[in-house]
């Protein structure tokens, strides 16, 4: 496996540290004019999501982590695994476990496309698109004509996610939701 030396460190690089795949968030060179150079590196452990600060001597290297992002369509779950399929025409399927799916579970809709991060060929994490469109399956009755600011109520979406929506939203409507904040954006005209 390839490795990267401190001179190659930069944001976005995926490396192995203490046996775990990590992504470099920041790399700062610290060096007295005539003295030994060090790299102060901030990394996020892709397994635990924890952020680590580490110091390296100039010239030290880290093994590259076999981590890559692929677009995949969500197919179905068998209760133990969630199955995804490459969208590149290969129809290759990958089962993701509950740990990999994590919080993305509440945004998973069949036939939608997700970013699947593979580590050594197996799903490590699933990232939803920034916006998803989901149907409301449960909410208090809508109040027709009330489009004024101020009021909101909870609505349960087809995936189980609960978002705060304006009072006029009714069951069966399709909503656009920002998955990063979990916020309601707008109604989507049904096709």
């Amino acid at each position, binding site marked *: 496996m390839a490795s990267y030396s401190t001179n190659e460190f930069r944001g976005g690089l995926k490396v192995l540290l203490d046996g775990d795949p990590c992504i470099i968030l920041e790399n*700062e060179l610290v060096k*007295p*004019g005539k003295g*030994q*150079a*060090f790299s102060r590196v901030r990394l996020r452990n892709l397994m635990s999501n924890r952020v680590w600060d580490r*110091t390296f*001597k*100039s010239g030290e290297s880290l093994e590259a982590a076999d981590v890559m992002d692929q677009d995949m369509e969500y197919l179905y779950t068998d209760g133990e695994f969630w199955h995804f399929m490459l969208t590149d025409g290969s129809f290759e399927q990958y089962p993701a476990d509950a740990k990999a799916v994590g919080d993305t579970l509440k945004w998973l809709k069949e036939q939608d496309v997700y970013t699947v991060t593979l580590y050594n060929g197996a799903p490590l994490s699933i990232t939803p698109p920034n916006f998803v469109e989901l149907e409301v399956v449960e909410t208090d009755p809508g109040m027709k004509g009330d489009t004024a600011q101020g009021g909101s109520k909870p609505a349960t979406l087809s995936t189980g996610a609960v978002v705060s929506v304006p009072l006029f939203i009714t069951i069966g409507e399709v909503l656009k939701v920002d998955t990063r904040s979990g916020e309601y954006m707008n109604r989507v005209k049904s096709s």
Partner: protein
Amino acid sequence: MKSQPDWQPTATWAALKSRAQQASFVRDFFARRNVLEVETPVLGRCGVTEPNLDGVSAQISARGVEGGWLQTSPEYHMKRMLAAGAGAIYQISKVFRNGERGRRHNPEFSMLEWYRPGFDDAALMSEVSDLVCGWLNCPRPQTTSYRQAMIAWAGIDPFDITEKDLRQRCRQWLEPEQLEDLSRDGCLDLLMSFAVEPNLGTETPVFINQYPASQASLARISQVGGFDVAHRFELHINGLELCNGYWELTDVEEQRARFEADNLMRKAAGKPEMNADEAFLAALEYGLPDCAGVALGLDRLLMLKIGTRDIADVLAFPLERA
């Protein structure tokens, strides 16, 4: 859609104007003091032996000269001028240091370097203060010895701490296996960078002087308080190292020995050995007048002037956009 390369300057026009004003200020400062502006090669036949400086190699091929190096500092060429009788000289030049890119570093940067025959380190520190405080309107620097600074901020005495205790102190930043092949000076550099430097010059600019003899580089050495110390100084403002000056070594045999010691350290660190610059040694042999010299980073001086922590804010095009 194909993404466009980042083509615009990273610095604001105000910063780039300030850069031009800074150059005028510097030229005026030295003109008033009868210090002559000179130019020396940016592309030289030789690099440097300094164990912690890596040059950028060139591929010149002309009149039998092959290879070459972009200079890490104009020091050797300027000292050859001094030996040839130049008198007081200064230069604003581009210098190159491979691998150095960060918020305070760009591999290509602007250096102000000057030499004062007849000055010692104390006299030159005073002139550095005139220049820097004149431009930044800051209070004149205090002076703290390397030893005092290390005791105050790193909690160790750099001259008599044992290897074992020094390594133990470094465990705050490095794992034992990382410390195995780090030299004593490497450990001290770690403490200087991580424990000491961030605290230097935060209220008043501060000169650090009296470095351990092992970090003398091209400075002469003498005994102070029972320890061998180098006549070397650095100015720190707001946690930023701004310059590095020496009461210059003029002894050719000592210089040759230091080049050889440098190469031993390079070899130990797995770096290529560098040929000693024989033209520079010949000039020392002929006779370098007693002088003090200093190199000051102009990009960092400008960072302090406009109040930024990122060198990209004072460069039109840092490496990634160059």
